[in-house]
């Protein structure tokens, strides 16, 4: 099923290695087949309590009143937690690296912005008693107008989903409501093109659907600390997020991850740990908070939907001369990681191809749906879908075989990319050649001889006769990193301070 094609790039490798390259058995395989592998939930702690949350049935509503009186008297209830009990109830995940503004409450206080947003947490002796108490909580809501479409959300007069971002978009560089990519002159490129096409591509939100749901168990430990067994994909990310939300020194928390039962990006958001730990702090007992499957599917964050408008200009000889992208990331009600994905997406455009004129505007848009998060291929998967469907359309337009069309336009070592860095260590051409060979998809000899490396045979001519767009200077080395952040005032150097003072 898998073969190594070592003859490619052999001169760049030293294959004289002892352990690397061997199909050595996984360190955890024996544990997996015997059931000895430990997941966060495989712990039995004395006196463990169970936490579940009341979730908003409305996509957008003001909370007028919360009546806990009946719930508090419900059998088995140990503690009910509200927004005002959370030491720092407003956060955004990437504040740890100084990106974004705190916009999301751990427990909603005056407003809910998506269906399923947590409002109240109940800690009880059993799962069932927690659910029974939740059913007794009375909340008065005042429903508000909703917006679910990314382009509708950007129009003047659209309901404001998240007051932190009053125009329903993330602000980039304190200047723009989108991330820009500008390389060359696309309008001139389109004018030169033989065909110009534009299409809209839409990717739906998707669930990570790991076999193990999100969850954690937090327990008081020795020395005033808390041990936290968690399903997180990012141990210190989650630890520092909890330290911030709970306003405790980071070494109060001892995070232990097990093997994680599938993540795919859906276990980075620190969804259960803050409340589990707070529950343990307030009750003095171990507290477990695990998502049910319906919770995981509907209220656990999905891969955000993306809408992409892709416009391409192609010459008669098959060279793409201009590519223009307008893309919208549906971030849902809060930022989480979508704002960061937008930048990754902009960096990815126009794909692994050398195109002299590229223009992109990528937006992070807020709507009244479950906040989105990272998922396998974050920022890239949907764009690749759009680009590669479009490449197929372009190939058909110019009458070229799709494989040959890719090879013709593929980037090669030394080509300038749209984000103004030189392409290095490229291998798209070879991948296309080998895939074609494996699939017995015939391509012409001249395309089978081409190479990614400088000096490799290339189709004539690669640069058009017309004067190209002004070329930016070729960097010999990446530009120097930004100046180091100032030392944090409190004197302790924590990784979360590396990127500078946190924005409130």
């Amino acid at each position: 099923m898998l073969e190594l094609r070592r003859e490619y790039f052999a001169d760049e490798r030293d294959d004289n290695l002892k352990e690397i390259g061997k199909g050595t058995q996984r360190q955890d395989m024996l544990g997996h087949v015997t059931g000895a592998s430990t997941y966060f939930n495989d712990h039995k702690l004395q006196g463990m309590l169970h936490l579940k949350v009341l979730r908003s049935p409305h996509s957008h509503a003001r909370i007028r009143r919360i009546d806990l009186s009946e719930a508090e008297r419900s059998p088995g209830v140990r503690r009910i937690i509200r927004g005002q009990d959370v030491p720092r109830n407003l956060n955004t995940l990437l504040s740890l690296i100084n990106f974004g503004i705190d916009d999301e409450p751990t427990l909603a206080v005056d407003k809910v912005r998506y269906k399923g947003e947590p409002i109240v947490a109940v800690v009880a002796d059993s799962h069932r008693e927690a659910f029974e108490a939740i059913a007794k909580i009375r909340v008065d809501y005042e429903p508000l107008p909703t917006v679910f479409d990314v382009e509708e959300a950007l129009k003047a007069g659209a309901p404001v989903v998240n007051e932190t971002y009053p125009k329903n978009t993330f602000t980039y560089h304190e200047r723009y409501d989108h991330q820009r990519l500008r390389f060359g002159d696309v309008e001139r490129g389109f004018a030169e093109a033989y065909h110009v096409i534009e299409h809209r591509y839409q990717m739906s939100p998707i669930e990570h659907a790991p076999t193990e749901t999100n969850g954690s168990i937090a327990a008081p430990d020795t020395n005033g600390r808390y041990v936290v067994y968690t399903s997180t994909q990012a141990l210190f990310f989650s630890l520092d997020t909890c330290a911030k939300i709970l306003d405790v020194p980071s070494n109060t928390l001892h995070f232990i991850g097990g093997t994680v039962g599938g993540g795919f990006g859906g276990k980075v958001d620190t969804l259960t740990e803050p409340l589990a730990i707070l529950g343990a702090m307030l009750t003095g007992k171990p507290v477990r908070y695990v998502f049910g499957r319906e919770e995981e599917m509907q209220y656990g964050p999905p891969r955000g939907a993306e809408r992409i408008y892709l416009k391409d200009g192609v010459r008669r000889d098959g060279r793409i001369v201009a590519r223009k992208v307008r893309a919208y990331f549906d971030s849902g009600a809060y930022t989480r990681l979508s704002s960061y994905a937008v930048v990754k997406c902009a960096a990815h455009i126009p794909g692994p191809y050398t195109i002299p004129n590229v223009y992109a505007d990528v937006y992070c848009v807020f709507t009244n749906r479950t906040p989105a998060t990272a998922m396998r291929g974050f920022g890239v998967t949907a764009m690749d879908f759009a680009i590669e469907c479009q490449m197929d359309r372009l190939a058909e337009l110019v009458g070229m075989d799709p494989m040959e069309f890719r090879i013709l336009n593929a980037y090669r070592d030394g080509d300038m990319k749209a984000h103004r860095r030189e392409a290095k260590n490229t291998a798209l051409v070879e991948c296309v050649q080998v895939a074609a060979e494996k699939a017995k998809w015939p391509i012409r000899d001249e395309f089978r001889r081409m190479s990614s490396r400088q000096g490799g045979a290339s189709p004539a001519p690669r640069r058009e006769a017309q004067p190209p767009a002004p070329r930016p200077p070729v960097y010999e080395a990446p530009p120097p990193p930004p100046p180091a952040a100032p030392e944090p005032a409190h004197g302790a150097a924590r990784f979360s301070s590396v990127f500078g003072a946190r924005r409130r």
Partner: protein
Amino acid sequence: MSKHRGRGMASINYPIGMNLGGDPSQALVHSNPTGKFTVSLSSIDLGQGMKSVTRQICAEALGVPVEDVYVDTADSDTGPHCMGSFASRGTHRVGNAVAAAAREARGVMMEAAAEELEVNAADLETDGRGNIHVKGAPHRSITTKEVAMAAQFKQGKTIAGRGIFLVPLSAVDPETGEMSPATCYAHACLVAEVEVDDETGEVTMIRMDSAYELGRALNPRLVEQQLVGGAWMGVSHALYETTEPYYPNAKQGPRDFVEYLMPGPGDICPHDIAVLERPAPDGPYGAKGPGEMCANPVLPAVANAIYNAVGVRVDDLPITPEKVLRGLKAQGGAKPKARR
């Protein structure tokens, strides 16, 4: 009325590591009294094989058998900081940190061996089987176990190492988007063959052929796991999955696995994979990371294959039977394209 076969392809690249960098990982390596090594990480293994590849990297860098290395991870008290397992960063960032820590530990180990054998450390080599000997004179040898004991109980040396790997954070130009998103990229091309039933709109996967360029296949069995599993997920994204079937209308959504569909073991197809290795100058032994990109080429390859089979373009994922049927109806039936 009939089933039509078609083929489609897609080619992609994928950036390795957290976008823009600034995502460090650290590792610690130390030997116990009898020459067995522990790698201490806080990195998370979510099935991608973090513990396994770092174990192999450590063994290679130290020059000891892999059986003499154990990776302990996911404890914030004992594992040094790692940004996390995401963005295809694990092999590249954590792998490099482990290699650096292992190299430092190896340096101490070789100095300790040199002292025992009364030679210069530069004249020694490891055989990867637990022995350290003089180059060209294999009989002048000492085991790593003996070295570890001598180092700790006689020489007062600690056979240990620390490593950190950081790609410096890149700025982003607000006007042009100029930035350094990644230091290396992986590549792939995938061909999908499908069969479309023009009466039900159902799409059946027939086979996939692919080529992935990954820098270095540290462990081909683990690479195979990722590429096969990832391609399966790609098929699932292309044809089955959505949390909002009528997006952007949010009214309906699946609540369980009966409503959230994914292909089962009876829906899979053969997948033949070729792996190319163009080492990344800054990857551990040149390795990049296949974890995310393995799903990406499948989505457009399948969409292109459906077009080839029946002439219907669906630009809206997932490509459900309803969408295929609507497309067929709009164009008056199946219009297969030339066989590729």
